[in-house]
């Protein structure tokens, strides 16, 4: 008698949790992986502020597909080993999708684990090219690769400044050299003559030898892709040599210290190509996000990557809404093939290519004004 009852009982016991798990009543779990401690804690904590605010807003408005969203935050400290550990924890917790990580070094091992588990993974800020070279079908970025900045810089030089002879100078770091090469390629495609292409040694203090050459090369503009300390010295020493050059610099020079090192009078009029500062992202969705953020935390979002993390959540929410599904395969398929022209927090999202890289660009050109402030240049390509 007891034996006859055992089987249906067992079936019943085993199915209850399954029904509960599949039912529409449970919360939709979304993971956020980022550096809450360590060197990049500033960015990771900004991620948490931005995303948890949006989760709260969504839940107050009735949730997603009639279900609550539960945000699970894990700290990878920016460290690849820790990233693999917390990625596994998020998978075990049964998340539908993951936002993260901040730095490419941490995103890489985590992306392997999410890929094996078949979970939708959106990184707000990891720009290393190789991340999307692995054929992971459920991995996406809302940030842009460095080659987008190269395209932007070349287009800006061509269309806005009307440059015919462009010089490009990098500092032999992987990042700066990459940006310089992308810019050269796009500039040549646009019909600009790249009349000067060379690198400085960032350990040097004196750049007058190469500046003397640059001065004699007949350039309309010179684009420096390295970091702000050398950028400042270049501006200062060029003026001391009596050179009258039009300087463009990449986003590694997007730092107020550039003006200090160069001296205000030498820095004025320098163009900077960069992702926009949060205050300058001029879209209704961006303005709403910034003002909500200020109301919630008493200060505007400090970093563009915080906006990118909000964007990552936004994209996941949009995909779930549009497909009426929480199945990662359906969501990834939607993002690859159907998602187009979404009103993003960081600007219109044109869509994603087959690798998962975001199409288009949001870069802006800034100019250093006579107060030493970085202001958006009125003319953009």
């Amino acid at each position, binding site marked *: 008698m007891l034996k006859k009852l055992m089987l249906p009982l067992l079936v019943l016991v085993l199915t209850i949790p399954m029904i509960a798990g599949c039912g529409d009543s449970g919360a939709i779990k979304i993971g956020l992986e980022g550096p809450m401690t360590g060197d990049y804690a500033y960015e990771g904590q900004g991620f948490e502020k931005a995303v948890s605010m949006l989760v709260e807003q969504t839940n107050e408005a009735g949730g997603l597909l009639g279900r609550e969203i539960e945000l699970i935050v894990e700290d990878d400290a920016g460290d690849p080993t820790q990233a693999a550990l917390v990625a596994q924890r998020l998978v075990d917790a049964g998340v539908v999708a993951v936002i993260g990580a901040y730095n490419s070094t941490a995103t890489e091992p985590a992306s392997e684990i999410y890929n094996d588990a078949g979970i939708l993974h959106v990184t707000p800020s990891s720009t290393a090219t190789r991340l999307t070279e692995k054929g992971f079908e459920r991995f996406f970025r809302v940030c842009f690769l460095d080659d987008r900045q190269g395209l932007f810089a070349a287009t800006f030089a061509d269309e806005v400044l009307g440059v015919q002879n462009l010089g490009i100078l990098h500092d*032999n770091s992987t990042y700066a050299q990459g940006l310089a090469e992308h810019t050269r390629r796009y500039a040549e495609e646009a019909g600009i003559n790249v009349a000067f292409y060379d690198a400085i*040694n960032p350990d*040097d203090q004196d750049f*007058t*030898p190469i500046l003397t050459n640059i001065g004699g090369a007949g350039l309309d503009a010179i684009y420096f892709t390295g970091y702000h300390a050398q950028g400042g010295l270049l501006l200062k020493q060029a003026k001391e040599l009596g050179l009258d050059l039009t300087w463009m610099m990449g986003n590694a020079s997007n730092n107020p210290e550039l003006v200090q090192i160069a001296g205000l009078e030498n820095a004025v009029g320098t163009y900077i190509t960069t992702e926009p500062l949060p205050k300058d992202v001029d879209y209704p969705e961006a303005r709403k996000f910034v003002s909500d953020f200020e109301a919630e935390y008493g200060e505007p979002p400090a970093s563009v990557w915080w906006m990118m993390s909000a964007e990552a959540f936004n994209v996941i929410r949009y995909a779930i809404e549009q497909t009426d599904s929480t199945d990662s395969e359906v969501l990834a398929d939607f993002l690859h093939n159907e998602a187009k022209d979404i009103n993003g927090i960081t600007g219109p999202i044109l869509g994603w290519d087959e690798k998962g890289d975001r199409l288009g660009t949001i870069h802006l050109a800034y100019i250093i004004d006579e107060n030493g402030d970085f202001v958006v240049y009125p003319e953009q390509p």
Partner: protein
Amino acid sequence: MQFIQQLINGITIGAFYSLVALGYTMVYGVLKLINFAHGDLFMWGAYLGLTGLNVAVALLSGPSAWALIPVIIVVMLTVALAGVLVERVAYRPLRSAGRLAPVISALGVAFILQSLARNIYGASWKTYPPGFTVSGGVTLTAGVRVSTMQIIVLVISFLLMGGLYLFVQRTRIGTAMRAVSLDHDVSRLMGIDVNRIIAIVFLIGPGLGGVAGMIVGLYYGSFDFTLGWVFGLKAFIAAILGGIGNIPGAMLGGMILGITETLGAGYLSPQWKDVMAYLILIVILIFRPNGLLGERVAEKV
């Protein structure tokens, strides 16, 4: 015309190398010790100058060129005393310990000085307060320009180097220094207080280095804590090139290194300038192992 401009650039860089190289060469002359801490004493000159000028700006509520003189003197004295202290603590106890131990001790002092600067002032780039440098310059012909700061740097450097040369050649203490550089024991027998002479060398060398550090700070406007390592290494090589232990040699070596580096960077690429400069160094050392002016030391010995 570009060639003349590059020569001017090279001489300016060379002047800095020469000033720092003097410190290496003087210490080597009397102790046969390569004082690796010298580059970092030089770097401390730049940091102390920064603090001094910031204090001056705060006290006088604005930059004033007159503040430069007391600040330079204070920096020179402080770095000079630090040099004497380094000698007393890290080198003198090891003087009879062979040649390797003092060199390692010197490297240790270099790392300590560098870490101290990083921990006290932070790892970010530091900027001198504006208003202490003279802008402007002279355009000689089209494409050839000397800035006022370059002229000031060159004048100060040559005055310091010339003064030091006369001091060593013409004064009693200078004569004693040259005697000590030949033989400690015989000098002592002749009634020279060798320890006192060595202390004076450690007063003058780092003192000049400290001034050089502050001039670098004024000239370039900004620097970080690795300044001493980069300049120190180049200046050390300049000292060897000119013949270590020889004061005019340090000046010559600094100039040659500065000019070849600049021409390498200007006519090849900054990526190749070190290859150029050190290729020339190797060639010179193959033909003159004691450096360009090194033979005079050999003659004396």
